[in-house]
């Protein structure tokens, strides 16, 4: 079974191996800043992978998953505000809170479908956003400065330790997803995306599976948010702004939404573009370097128009097949 996972998810394993050795590269060439970029890539990639459970595999276009990142981040921030700075405890808190919230929001939102689902998930995310903006005690809109959480045995002020903590949690999430997507549950989720009424006719209650998928994805986003807070040493409602939900969706579509590795590939490309495009433009076309989004926007449109299946789809096979089967 393990060998099989290596064979089926080649891209993901390659990325994980590269990520594992990346700090050696940066220290050799003295580019410590790039560790930081990659940490952000891993965090947003992890959240996007979580979202992709519902988005790519379950066919539910949730426009509000940044809210779970926010809740995870605030679990860390608020715990620390009250002196509970054990990082493992904060991760647990984030997972539990996002799980409970996921059940509540999922249960209500999954009554709807299509565009209505997109909008109701956005509505709940906006409610949470405004809720945290109004929490004056925790800095409201200005946010809450916090220390990196205290992960027992791991002193996070050594930058590489945070890097590897994020890496190992990302790797764990990745392996869990590889298994999940090929499991009975994963197969049913993808079957629901393919044809909900057939699955229902087979005697399965789609809501149960969709809700479970929704909760798992919420928990993963929560974990990502909790680590995000430690990375940023700061929590503010900005982490759950609706544009971040949009960013997560873009990351997924960019990478390829029917692939487990897609969101990670998307995160790498998206954040590298954000990082390098202004610099690049400055060399080529200095007068509009500040307006780099005028290139970025059409680029996204081009990906949709010409790169069906995202980058993974362009590189790999172009057929729509369930992720449970295809080689990635």
């Amino acid at each position: 079974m393990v060998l099989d996972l290596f064979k089926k998810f080649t891209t993901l394993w390659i990325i994980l191996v590269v990520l594992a050795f990346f700090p050696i590269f940066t220290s050799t060439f003295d580019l410590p800043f790039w560790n930081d970029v990659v940490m952000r890539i891993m965090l947003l990639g992890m959240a996007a992978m979580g979202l992709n459970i519902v988005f790519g595999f379950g066919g539910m276009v949730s426009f509000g998953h940044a809210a779970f990142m926010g809740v995870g981040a605030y679990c860390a921030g608020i715990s620390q505000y009250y002196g509970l700075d054990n990082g493992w405890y904060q991760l647990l808190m984030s997972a539990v809170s996002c799980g409970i919230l996921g059940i509540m929001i999922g249960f209500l939102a999954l009554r709807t479908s299509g565009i209505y689902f997109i909008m109701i998930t956005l509505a709940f995310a906006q409610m949470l956003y405004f809720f945290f903006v109004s929490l004056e005690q925790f800095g409201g809109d200005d946010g809450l400065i916090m220390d990196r959480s205290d992960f027992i045995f791991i002193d996070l002020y050594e930058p590489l330790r945070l890097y590897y903590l994020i890496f190992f949690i990302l790797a764990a999430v990745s392996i869990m997803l590889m298994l999940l997507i090929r499991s009975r549950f994963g197969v049913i989720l993808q079957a629901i995306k393919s044809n909900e009424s057939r699955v229902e006719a087979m005697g399965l209650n789609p809501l149960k599976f969709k809700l479970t998928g929704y909760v798992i994805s919420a928990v993963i986003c929560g974990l990502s948010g909790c680590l995000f807070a430690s990375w940023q040493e700061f929590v503010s409602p900005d982490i759950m702004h609706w544009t971040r939900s949009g960013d997560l969706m873009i990351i997924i579509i960019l990478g390829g939404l029917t692939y487990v590795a897609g969101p990670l590939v998307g995160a790498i490309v998206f954040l590298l573009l954000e990082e390098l495009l202004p610099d690049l433009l400055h060399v080529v076309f200095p007068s509009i370097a500040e307006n780099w989004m005028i290139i970025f926007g059409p680029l996204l449109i081009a990906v949709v128009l010409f790169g069906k299946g995202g980058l993974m789809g362009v590189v790999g096979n172009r057929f729509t097949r369930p992720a449970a089967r295809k080689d990635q």
Partner: protein
Amino acid sequence: MKNKFITAVIAAGFVASAGTAFAETIKVGYMTTLSGGAGIIGKQMKNAVELAMEHKGGKLGGMDAEVIFVDDQRKPDVTKQLANKLLKSEKVDVIGGIIWSNLLMAIHKQVTRSDTLLISSNAGPSPVAGSNCHKNFFSMSWQNDQTPEAMGAYMNSAGVKSVYAMAPNYQAGKDMIAGFKRFYDGEVVGEVYTKLGQTDFQAELSALRAAKPPATFIFQPGGMGINFVKQWKQAGMDDVSKLYTVFSVDGISLPALKETALGTISTQTWSPDLDNAINKKFVADYKSKFGGYPSFYAAQAYDTILAIDHAVAKSGSKDTAKMREVLAAGGIPTTRGSLKMNSNHFPIQNFYLREAVKDSDGVVTSKIIDTVFEDHGDAYAQDCKF
């Protein structure tokens, strides 16, 4: 903004081979919001920094200098990553800029801990002035509460008995009203928090018309200020109540408000007509180079560069501890005159009452009509222990 990645690689190579053969260069990372809706503010700040570098002949304190501009996109996580880039990749000696409180909060700890000076050109939230202060942080602007404090004090002296206060519902808005109430002795008959980013204030104006307060105090920065003042005038509210503003009618909104803003009063630490040599040169050159008056954001950005120049010149080095000592001692030559520094590294400065007027060319600008506070320090300095 150049291709930093390539620069970094090349620089690393040079440093390894050439060692210290080069003359010392001081590197300043300047962070502001260049893209998105607030891009106009960042643009003015960038202009001002470039002007300052021009005035200093491209050197800071006589040392070769390089300024690297980065666009924070007004997002905390992007800001944090850029700060990291400036620190680790560019290895800058000073980080300056930053418009927004939340962005400053996002990078405050990281930059100060790395033993690099962080000089804010605008943001001044209370945590970094008080209990969370750090010796490596300096403000070239003000603490958020101070400007409304000045307005509160002025309104006392003007004999305003009761006021209706209005600000957006976010942290800075609440700080502003808290600061205002700290100094204002009269009655606050209404305290209304509008939505952040609200564009239409007609509903609030209707409520205000019904309440008929003799005075209205507002904090509505950026686009919100343009909309508020415009709609205030359109609704003929001047007949109902007198408007007192902070950070709502300034060099950013005046070009959009034009004559509509005439007569509006506000408090501020700086004004284009402030009478000193540095300011006169700054305003005149800014106007001729970029067309139009600079805003206080631009002035503070200009001052940030002047402060670095002063620190290097006086200490003769770009060493953080030495520069810090110079800046903490105060006496920094700026567009606001010689700036004194408080124990928490925020300026102790004058606060002026300004009115929107037409200049001799018919352009609407602001003019100082009174000095409300002289050498005013902020309320949080006592909580600050380095």
